[in-house]
C-alpha cells in the first residue's frame, strides 16, 4: 500500500512539536521520550504538513520556494521516515 499518492495529506502528529534548540543551533522535532534533529529543509517540509495540503501541493510549494524540481521522492522519503516513528500520519 502506497501512502504517497497525490491526494495523500500528511499531517504532523499532535504529540510532536517543532522546537528551536538554541544551545546546539538547530531545529528539532520533540515527541514523548525522544527527538529528531532537523535541517532547514526538514523544517520547511513539516511547516507545510498542517493537514490542509496534499503531498503534491507540499512538493510543488517547496519546488517553487527552492526554485528546483524533482523533490517529490526526497520529500516522500523524509515523511515516510517520520511516519515509521508515528510522528506523521496520512489522511485523505
Amino acid at each position, binding site marked *: 500500500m502506497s501512502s504517497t499518492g497525490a491526494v495523500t495529506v500528511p499531517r504532523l502528529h499532535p504529540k510532536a512539536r517543532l*522546537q528551536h534548540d538554541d544551545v546546539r543551533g538547530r531545529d528539532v522535532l520533540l515527541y514523548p521520550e525522544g*527527538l529528531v534533529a532537523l535541517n532547514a529543509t526538514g523544517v520547511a517540509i513539516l511547516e507545510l504538513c498542517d493537514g490542509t495540503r496534499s503531498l503534491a501541493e507540499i512538493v510543488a510549494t517547496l519546488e517553487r520556494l527552492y526554485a528546483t524540481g524533482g523533490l517529490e521522492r526526497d520529500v516522500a522519503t523524509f515523511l515516510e521516515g517520520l511516519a515509521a516513528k508515528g510522528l506523521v500520519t496520512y489522511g485523505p
Partner: protein
Amino acid sequence: MDLKPLWLLAELTYKCPLQCPYCSNPLDFAGARFKRELSTEQWCRVFREAKALGVLQLGLSGGEPTLRPHLEELVRTAHGLGLYTSLITSAYRLTKERLAALKEAGLDHVQISVQGADAELSDEIAGTASYRDKIAAYHYTRELGFPLTVNAVLHRRNLHQVEGLIRLAESLGAERIDLANTQFYGWALHNRDALMPTKAQLDAAWQVVLRERARLGTRLEIVWVLPDYHGQFPKPCMGGWGRAYMTVTPAGEVWPCHAAGRITTLTFENVRDRPLGWIWEHSDAFTRFRGDAWMPEPCRSCPRKAQDFGGCRCQAFLVAGDAGATDPVCSLSPHRHLIDEAIARVEAVEERPAELTYRAAPASRALAAKG
C-alpha cells in the same frame, strides 16, 4: 565542553500514595537527606538553567508529582521555556479537571503507570487500590488530547499479563506502552529474589511482544526495556555517564541518574549551592565516570566500550561493591558470577515465598536505621 544534557528528570517529591515494591526511589526516601523540598521558585530556576544548558526533554516525576503544590506553575514555566514536558504519574485520584488545568498550562505528554492488567493484580502490586483511578485517567487523557504512554514495570508476578497489558493500552488508544523489565536498584534490589522472573517467563513474554508488534505496527509503539541480568552485555546506561541526562531530587541534589545517589563513594552537589551548569561540567558526581579514562579492563580494551560505556555504574557499586568496576552483568566481568548466582537462585525455586517489602515511609525508616 561538547557534551550537553538533553534530559532532565525532576523528582518533585518522594511522597507517593502507591507502595510498589520495585520503586526506583532511594530506600531512605523518607530520611533527612530528602526532607527539605525545593521551593517552586528554586525549581523554576533549575528549569531555566537546564534549558540554557541544552535540556529539551523534562520529566516531572516523584514519588507522585501531582502531590507537589503549584505543579501547574512549574508546568507553565517549563512550557514557556520550550521544554517538552511529560508528567510521570500513578494517576491516583487524578481528576479530569486537574489534567485539563495541566493541559492549559502547557503539559505535552502524560505517562501513567499500571501495575497489572486487571484491578486485582494491579492493586495488589501497587499496595494501594488505584486501578480504577488509572483507567479513568487514561480516558481523560484521550478526551483532552494528550499523547499517552502506559508504563508497566514487569517482574515475576505480572509477566504472564504482558498480552493483557498491551491489549489494555491498545483499547485506550495509547501512543506507546513501556514494558519495563525490573532493573534491580533501590527497592527492586531489596526485593530482588521475589521479583526476578525465570528465563522461561521472559522468553514467553518476549514472544508475545514480537507477535503484538507485528500485529499493531505503528498504531501502538511497544517499548521493551531489556532485563539486563539475562543479557550477555550491559545496557548503555543513560546513554553513558554524564552524557545526556540529569536527575534532580526533591531536596535539590543532582544525580547522573535516578539511582546514582546510592553510590556512597561519590560527592553530590545541590542546586541550592551551585548553578546547574557548574554541577554538570565540574562536579565529582558528573565527571568521575564521564568518557572512558576511568575504565578498568575488560572495558578499557573492549571494542564495545563506545556502545555500552561500561554499562551501569550503580549496578557495579551495588553488586560488585565498586562503582568503577565493569558492570557485573557483562559476560566479561570478573563479577558476573554474582549475577549468575542470583539468577540460579530464582531458577532453582519452584514457588518462592511471597514476601515483598512494600515501598512506604515506615519501611524506609526501618531500612535506613539498619544502614
